[in-house]
């Protein structure tokens, strides 16, 4: 799936200090009926973001105009539940390029990496600091640097490094996906099949 090359993002962040945010909250199943990868951002966090009559819930961070930016900061175990890649498409389509948490569900993390959305895992203590920084100043700037594998609170200069496997890092930096790689491997795959 085509996505923007990722190098470094400097941006304010949107806080979502909730744990175990599951993929049914990120995008409820009833919004999975599209056959193209378009427009999912409108229904991102649908039931937390809108009242039943469709009016925005004023206390939800995405509806708070003081928050903005390409970085979402969320509580631990983000993205648990379903394998729906629509969750990533919704976050990406809304404009997020980075999600920061202290813990991600496996399938969500894989899906994010396959779609140019960077999952940044930080320590619980650093996550708390990030939340505090946003609370102090909703316009506070953060930097996600893929090359250095760092996430930095720009005002204080406090920074943490995050893990990413070198292959995925290479893919994200160059906007590549695994399909190009696998298709080029067909001869090897065929030989493997014959040897089975």
């Amino acid at each position: 799936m085509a996505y923007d090359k990722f190098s470094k993002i400097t941006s304010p962040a949107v806080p979502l200090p909730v744990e175990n945010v599951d993929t049914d909250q990120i995008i409820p199943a009833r919004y999975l009926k599209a056959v193209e990868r378009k427009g999912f951002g409108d229904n991102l966090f649908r039931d937390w973001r809108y009242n039943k009559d469709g009016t925005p819930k004023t206390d939800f961070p995405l509806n708070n105009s003081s928050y903005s930016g390409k970085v979402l900061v969320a509580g631990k175990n983000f993205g648990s539940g379903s394998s729906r890649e629509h969750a990533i498409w919704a976050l990406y389509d809304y404009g997020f390029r980075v999600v920061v948490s202290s813990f991600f569900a496996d399938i969500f993390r894989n899906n994010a990496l396959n779609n140019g959305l960077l999952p940044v895992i930080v320590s619980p203590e650093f996550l708390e600091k990030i939340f505090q920084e946003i609370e102090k100043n909703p316009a506070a700037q953060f930097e996600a640097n893929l090359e250095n594998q760092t996430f930095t609170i720009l005002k204080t200069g406090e920074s943490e490094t995050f893990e990413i496997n070198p292959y995925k890092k290479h893919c994200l930096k160059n906007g590549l996906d695994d399909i190009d790689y696998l298709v080029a491997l067909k001869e090897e795959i065929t030989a493997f099949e014959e040897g089975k």
Partner: protein
Amino acid sequence: MEANTLFDKIWDAHAVKQVEGGPAVLYIDRHLIHEVTSPVAFLGLKTRGLKVFRPDQTTATPDHNVPTENQHLTIMDELSRHQVDMLKRNCEEHNIKYHDLQSDGHGIVHIIGPELGLTQPGLTIVCGDSHTSTHGAFGAIAFGIGTSEVEMVLASQCIMQPKPKKMRITVNGELKKGVTAKDIALYIISQISTSGGTGHFIEYAGQAITSLSMEGRMTLCNLSIESGARGGMIAPDETTINYVKGRQYAPKGADWEKAVSAWKELKSDEEAVFDTEYTFDAADIEPMITYGTNPGMGIGITQNIPKVNGMSGSDKSTFLKSLQYMGYTEGDSMIGKQVDYVFVGSCTNGRIEDFRAFAGFVKGKEKAPGVTAWLVPGSQKVEKQIRNEGLDKILEAAGFQLRQPGCSACLAMNEDKIPDGKYAVSTSNRNFEGRQGPGARTMLASPLTAAAAAITGTITDPRDMM
């Protein structure tokens, strides 16, 4: 020789290559697809001008958003109809076996795979659905994937995966009366939490596990994902072999003999080391019920909802948010709580054994007048067997009707939505906020506990009525 786990043996036999500093290229034997997570993958193939690499290794069926009534009519919901039509068209174009609505092979993907004999020990099986872990019950490596990965499998019959860590969960002893595979699973998740299995692949072992039927094993492995693990598996034995034998896609004749002798070797070596181990005692498990909004928030049915006292920080806020959504109070007993809906079905508990348990329980009793019950067989074959065994008559006499196969109220993508604020006892797999419909309140339980609730209209210990 190095001691290996069952997982290692199957994984290593399917690793085409290891990318340096990256994931393995893992060969996939069986690929299952459905209408919701495949259309964008097919679109991707088209954009790249690619064909399906091994069409005979993919099997398709619509399940997630199909209606469970009047399946002979055109699907009323336009978007659902379009997704189902699209799946059918994509399968025709790429020569993929498609099991249409009402055909003998139709049903929830994770129910039909085993029924058709596509699911076999030692295989790698993937599907764009997290409950693909179900197939691990046969001693296969089976796990859910995203749409990008569905496209990878279609294009190359491989995906790129880092090798997970290995966990073994041993449940010793015998299960007590009224305790089912569903209760084992909910018990385990309540003990290790919904993130306890993250980064791992589970192997289940111990007497309480090996004494389970294939249906029970599928229920247990199905729920592995709810602990955060990618999948769970059980070493194949006679129970497994007897289940697979004679099914449509099972090996036949000399191939069968050869397969069986290979399957008998599929087990973890005695010296094999797991990254994480847990041991539980079956005697500690009673019928389980969830009180909160994730599958880890479960308790034995006679226990009380935990108290907030002693919790701190984010654990406390998560707990309170859950109770508020459910309309429950800390420290309360679950017994006697009101039940408006009962849902029996899904890839977790939509198999024949689940309907036998439910029908056996309600036989000669009567459904509570205030309860709306949705009984949704997991497949055409399950529905047919229910009728062959006369269970439909027992159910009807007790005031229950069967619907037609599909995922139904498990994720409420079709019309089967629990109304806002209503309480549902559900045999499915997720009690997330709004999972069964906006504002719906879900309590996960076994088919027996669901049956007790359907008869009394309240949360009831099924053992008191058996």
